[in-house]
């Protein structure tokens, strides 16, 4: 068998050949004679992106702790390498062994973004594995998926054998152990394994074990399990105590530069906020924090084993970590002397302080990013952002005084109830940031002011208060974007916005059901690959694919879903109750806010999942 690694002439002909060679420090190579299960952790994007993914790092470490399992990494080859592989008949191989992934036991795909779906299917094609679950033979690998998109993976249901709902650390191990046990006692067959996994392991969703029926108007009538031992609803799996969860002590050290080339320290899971547009804020609940001691120990160990000069404290909203001061104090005891800087992405406007600012700028400077999300207080209340313009101006004042001259502001267009006044508010807010800069005495502000306004398009996501909302049409979004451009008159404001047509396709895929599968396959057939990249994305190709499969994209986007409609993701129980989401939706329309978990428990339902939490009642 030929592996890419042996083909020097091809490696010399492609961009960044370092993506394909493996052999990195701390990558794990095992003796395959002593292995019971070969697992391929597949990331449907290029090496630099995949290597930066924290979830993949965690699972790589966790699975490889088991001496019976060898977990290897697989990334999507870039377009130029893919073309060479197709031309010369080179199959998709794993980084560590260089061996054909088709011979593996399980392929686990990280579904981190809907636009990676076409890359998943293209990778299966490169591997020579049938796309449809029902076409796979007994000796072909089990294809499973996990990650945020798994919460509504219905558009991919026909392609996957099994979906992981929730956190993978324990769930994946359970799946692997059932597989090894059934192989060892001779009871393994694809169908027997999938059936037992669905029936016995919490968090396993096997799409093929459900019948889906539809009403005359095309809406879903029901999801019915085919067997009595298959759960009606699949409950999300969580890690109960994060202090006891495995965390890597070493990181695979990429030779080439990756997107997040640093130590990432996950400080907690979940989010106390509850912004009504945010899916991550719901699906990762309940909030579970790690202790500063656990984190500091992990950080020190990772620094010694990697030599990185930056530690990033990762979570959905880092300044909401209840013991942040204790943690940063502990870290700063040694990081300054070791020439290591701390970075705290995801800071909130209302909890940003001078003290925090000094801690992160003690070694290095750079810009700061804040997310007011909407341009007026009215709309910020609708989305439950719970920050005020005063919070923003106070924060940027601290940032400017602390020597940061560039500030990036994130907003969204197309939010429910948005008016042109709200859009104009974005421009006004940015202008006030500039005014705040000039209000400071000259000696207190750094030179080179830069304000960037970055505006995304709202996509109504499953498991949010806005899951029933209609998406703004892309024509309307494009109009709003150009209106905003007209409102921004100050040359010092840089204005970026997301492509509305990309958000439209994203909405179809995130809200879609099983009837989308032929359209996704058609897009792949037409060459869709690395869709998440601007140069890989083609709106017209997607529209042709929908048309060829008889899918009306408006049905999933601008139509909106009825409050009593069966939703494609109703088969999944992520812990958050529908009643809570409906309550939140009503409050949104009344412009009422909901306090953070730390102030008051609003009874979202996630506490029923258990877990060592601080705030749930």
């Amino acid at each position: 068998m030929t592996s890419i690694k042996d083909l020097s002439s091809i490696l010399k002909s492609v961009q960044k050949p370092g993506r394909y060679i493996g052999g990195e420090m701390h990558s794990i190579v095992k003796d395959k004679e002593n292995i019971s299960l070969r697992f391929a952790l597949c990331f449907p994007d290029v090496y630099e992106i995949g290597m930066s993914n924290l979830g993949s790092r965690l699972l790589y470490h966790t699975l490889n702790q088991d001496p019976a399992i060898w977990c290897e990494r697989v990334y999507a080859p870039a377009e130029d390498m893919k073309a060479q592989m197709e031309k010369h008949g080179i199959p998709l191989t794993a980084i560590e062994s260089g061996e054909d992934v088709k011979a593996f036991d399980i392929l686990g795909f990280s579904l981190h973004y809907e636009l990676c779906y076409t890359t998943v299917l293209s990778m299966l094609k490169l591997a020579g594995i049938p796309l449809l679950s029902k076409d796979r033979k007994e000796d072909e690998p089990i294809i499973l998926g996990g990650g945020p998109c798994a919460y509504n993976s219905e558009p991919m249901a026909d392609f996957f054998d099994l979906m992981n709902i929730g956190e993978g650390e324990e769930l994946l191990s359970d799946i692997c152990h059932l597989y090894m046990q059934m192989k060892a006692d001779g009871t393994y067959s694809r169908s027997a394994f999938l059936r037992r996994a669905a029936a016995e392991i919490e968090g396993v969703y096997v799409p093929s074990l459900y019948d889906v029926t539809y009403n005359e108007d095309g809406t879903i009538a029901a999801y019915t399990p085919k067997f009595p031992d298959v759960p009606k609803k699949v409950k999300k799996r969580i890690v109960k105590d994060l202090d006891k969860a495995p965390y890597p002590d070493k990181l695979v050290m990429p030779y080439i530069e990756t997107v997040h080339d640093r130590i990432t320290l996950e400080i907690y899971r979940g989010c106390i906020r509850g912004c009504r547009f945010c899916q991550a804020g719901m699906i990762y609940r309940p909030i579970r924090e790690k202790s500063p001691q656990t984190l500091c120990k992990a950080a020190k160990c990772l620094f010694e084993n990697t030599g990185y000069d930056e530690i990033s404290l990762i979570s959905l909203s880092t300044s909401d970590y209840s013991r942040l001061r204790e943690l940063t104090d502990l870290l700063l005891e040694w990081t300054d002397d070791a020439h290591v800087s701390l970075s705290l992405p995801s800071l909130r406007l209302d909890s940003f302080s001078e003290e925090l600012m000094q801690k992160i700028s003690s070694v290095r400077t750079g810009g700061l990013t804040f997310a007011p999300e909407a341009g007026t207080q009215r709309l910020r209340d609708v989305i439950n952002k719970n920050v005020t313009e005063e919070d923003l101006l106070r924060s940027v004042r601290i940032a400017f005084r602390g020597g940061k001259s560039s500030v990036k502001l994130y907003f969204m267009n197309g939010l429910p109830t948005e008016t042109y006044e709200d859009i104009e508010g974005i421009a006004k807010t940015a202008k006030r940031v500039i005014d705040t800069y000039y209000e400071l005495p000259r000696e207190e502000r750094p030179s080179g002011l830069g304000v960037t306004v970055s505006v995304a398009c709202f996509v109504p996501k499953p498991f949010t208060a806005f899951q029933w909302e209609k998406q703004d049409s892309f024509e309307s979004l494009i109009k709003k974007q150009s209106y905003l451009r007209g409102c921004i008159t100050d040359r010092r404001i840089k204005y970026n916005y997301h492509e509305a047509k990309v958000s439209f396709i994203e909405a179809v895929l995130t809200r879609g059901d099983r009837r989308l599968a032929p359209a996704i396959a058609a897009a792949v057939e037409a060459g869709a690959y690395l869709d998440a990249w601007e140069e890989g994305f083609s709106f017209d190709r997607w529209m042709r694919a929908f048309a060829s499969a008889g899918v009306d994209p408006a049905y999933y986007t601008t139509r909106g879903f009825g409050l009593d409609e069966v939703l494609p993701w109703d088969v999944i129980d992520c812990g958050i109750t529908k009643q809570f989401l409906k309550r939140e939706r009503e409050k949104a329309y009344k412009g009422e806010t909901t306090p953070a978990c730390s102030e008051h428990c609003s009874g979202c339902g996630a506490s029923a999942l258990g877990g060592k939490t601080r705030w749930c009642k």
Partner: protein
Amino acid sequence: MVQVKNLPYITLRFKFYKKGALQYISHLDLVRTMHKIIVRAGFPLWYTEGFNPKPKLIFGAPLSIGCESDCEFLDVRLVERMNESDAIAALNQNMTEEMQVTEAYYTDGKFSDMAYLGYDFRFSLVDGTRALESIAACLEREEILIKKQGKSGKEKVMKTVNIKPQIHSAKVYADGEEICIRAILSADPASFLNPEHLVSVLKNECGILKEENLAKESYSILRTDAYKKDLSPFV
């Protein structure tokens, strides 16, 4: 250790090889990787001054992608002397087997004394006999021309450059099935010759390594030695 301003430093020079798959790692990526390796190795590093202190690493002639080497040099500035063999062991533990240090010594020498680099090229070709003659003829020409991106004022333009003066010597011979070239090329920063340029000339002029033969034909380049101006070994 917090560094006081203007600490004196001493320079420890390492000679190392970089082979196998690591030939696909660019010089810039090697620099980034090496920074992390020396931090892991726990050396008493000298840091640059200023707001963003960094250890000071100085590399010898950069090695292009697709080129292996037995002969790479790295200077590391230290604030205190450490035993050379301990330094070698500490670095090697923190590198993979395709990149290992072979020598370490303290020096005041400069990389600007490096005038030439020696390379071994090996080609595995479909029709070696024919290629041998045509490569030999190509290398003997008075002028060996390549097209290169250059600048005319601010504009980017394609320039034709004669690389013959940058080739000190080049001998071609057959070794079993393989065609080999032993070449000594200029390492002077002003007239540094990337060995890949030589391969691209042969690709264009001798009909080897054509796109359709990429899975059948291959070549390797190994940097073997470094020389001073008088062709004595560079140390």
